[in-house]
């Protein structure tokens, strides 16, 4: 385990040691139900109240605008289904992008079956939407615009502030899936005019199974999980106090340390990108070169397939992921890579390296040493590589 080089921080991150320490009292002695009136119940209530304040401060929101959920997927589902069912008398049109996470796309597919109409904005070869496309897509019936803050595969950062502004001008609710952006991009929901924002704790060294949804004050969306009066009666279920406490400290840490992290990871990222481009032929950097998450590196290597690449890296104790949806058990290439215009066979051969605060230059150097060898080995095995320059 010790020699593992973990380069899949976009999939999940290790829970920070000091965050776990903050959670421990609530995993042991302070087990009280936060809705209970006696002492250990009140102690949980106080911890949750403080956690909510902490989260609100990190996002530039009011505490009353923060709702805890079980993760990014629940937050996305709640935001979209809750808004659409509340506003369906006003219209049935939703605007999103072609490169959203499945938590958004599959939710919208479900709504399409119920009669909602969805416009999927295309992206350019770098994965950016066009603001003009967004403007042109708006109809009288548009009730929601949902655009991810940054893409999980190729790392492209979308023009969220501009998009939110347009939504506001037209009186349309604006949601953003910021699951990947938290801790990597500075976000202030009030200043940016965002109406709803989803986040997921395990993406920024917090606990798994914990997320939050910011809902602007005054915005009415329907409840998603009905039941008890937790979360001001808007999200039922006995509070996961350790999870809530953990999320709040992890968020505080990752927003407080953002400048340092961005500086460090951007340098590592650009070093790795440059070296890979220098040493491996027939590769393509996916995603925008500068408007990109500080921790994201995504390459397609022609003539080879992503999963084999990952397995070979794994054998060298390097944990990375494929740009493709292989992980989801599906054989289709990634919808994101297809959306930026890659042909199928190239979309199959992608590698995502996602850096976290804990990664070092030494680890990048190991990658830079192993990757060219592995790519070459797989190419020598590939029937597609035959006859290509440099092949045997």
């Amino acid at each position, binding site marked *: 385990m010790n020699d593992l080089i973990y380069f899949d921080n976009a999939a999940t991150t290790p829970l920070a040691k000091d965050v776990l320490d903050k959670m421990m009292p609530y995993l042991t002695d302070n087990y009280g139900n936060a809705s209970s009136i006696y002492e250990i119940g009140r102690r949980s209530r106080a911890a949750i109240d403080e956690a909510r304040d902490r989260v609100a401060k990190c996002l530039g929101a009011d505490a009353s605008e923060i709702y805890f959920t079980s993760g990014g997927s629940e937050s996305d589902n709640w935001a979209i289904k809750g808004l659409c069912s509340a506003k369906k008398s006003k219209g049935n049109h939703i605007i999103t992008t072609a490169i959203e996470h499945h938590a958004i796309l599959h939710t919208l597919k479900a709504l399409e079956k119920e009669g909602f109409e969805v416009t999927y904005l295309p992206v350019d070869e770098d994965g950016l939407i066009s603001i003009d496309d967004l403007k042109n897509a708006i109809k009288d019936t548009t009730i929601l615009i949902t655009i991810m803050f940054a893409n999980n595969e190729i790392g492209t950062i979308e023009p969220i502030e501009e998009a939110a502004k347009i939504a506001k001008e037209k009186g349309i609710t604006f949601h953003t899936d910021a699951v990947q952006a938290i801790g990597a991009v500075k976000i202030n929901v009030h200043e940016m005019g965002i109406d709803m924002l989803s986040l997921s704790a395990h993406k920024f060294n917090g606990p798994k199974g914990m997320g939050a949804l910011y809902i602007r004050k005054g915005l009415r969306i329907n409840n998603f999980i009905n039941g008890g009066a937790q979360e001001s009666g808007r999200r039922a279920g006995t509070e996961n106090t350790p999870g809530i406490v953990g999320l709040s400290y992890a968020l505080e840490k990752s927003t407080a340390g953002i400048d340092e992290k961005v500086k460090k990871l951007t340098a590592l990222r650009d070093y790795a990108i440059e070296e890979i481009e220098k040493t491996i032929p027939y590769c393509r950097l996916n995603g925008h070169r500068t408007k990109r998450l500080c921790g994201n590196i995504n390459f397609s290597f022609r003539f080879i397939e992503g999963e084999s690449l990952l397995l*070979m890296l794994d054998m060298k104790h390097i944990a990375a992921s494929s740009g493709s949806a292989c992980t989801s058990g599906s*054989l289709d290439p990634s919808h994101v890579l297809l959306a930026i215009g890659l042909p199928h*066979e190239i979309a199959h051969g992608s590698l995502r390296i996602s850096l976290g605060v804990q990664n070092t230059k030494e680890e990048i150097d190991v990658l830079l040493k192993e990757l060219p060898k592995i790519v070459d080995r797989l190419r020598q*095995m590939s*029937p597609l590589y035959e006859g290509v320059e440099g092949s045997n």
Partner: protein
Amino acid sequence: MMYSEKVLDHFSNPRNVGEVENANAVGQVGNAKCGDIMKISMRIEDNIIKDVKFKTFGCGAAVATSSMATELVKGKSVDDALKLTNKAVMEALDGLPPVKVHCSVLAEEAIGAAIQNYYDNAGIDKKVKKGCDGCCSSCGGHDEHHHE
């Protein structure tokens, strides 16, 4: 998704990679669109597969099934090789995850395609019937598998 130790072994140390020199049986199946291409070349003498090699563009399971399939047919008669099923390849690898079943089908098909090529080259009027019967229902099925 979990690969067996055998799959990982055949993936990391694939047997019979490359191309047989003086091959008289070459078959390629799959297409890059669905993510898998397997190419098998053989030297067949006196109805015996003297040598066999593969090249594969595909996932870990595709590499491992290619490797195992070539091991299983090497030194066998053509008729015995034609009896090789994807199930046998999977069993020899201690199983495959459900979404990877089609990779083993591909291996069976590639062997079949190579032998068909041998029949055609040798002017033998036989048709090899091999391939997917919609078995795994996860890979888009038959139509995607294009035989060369």
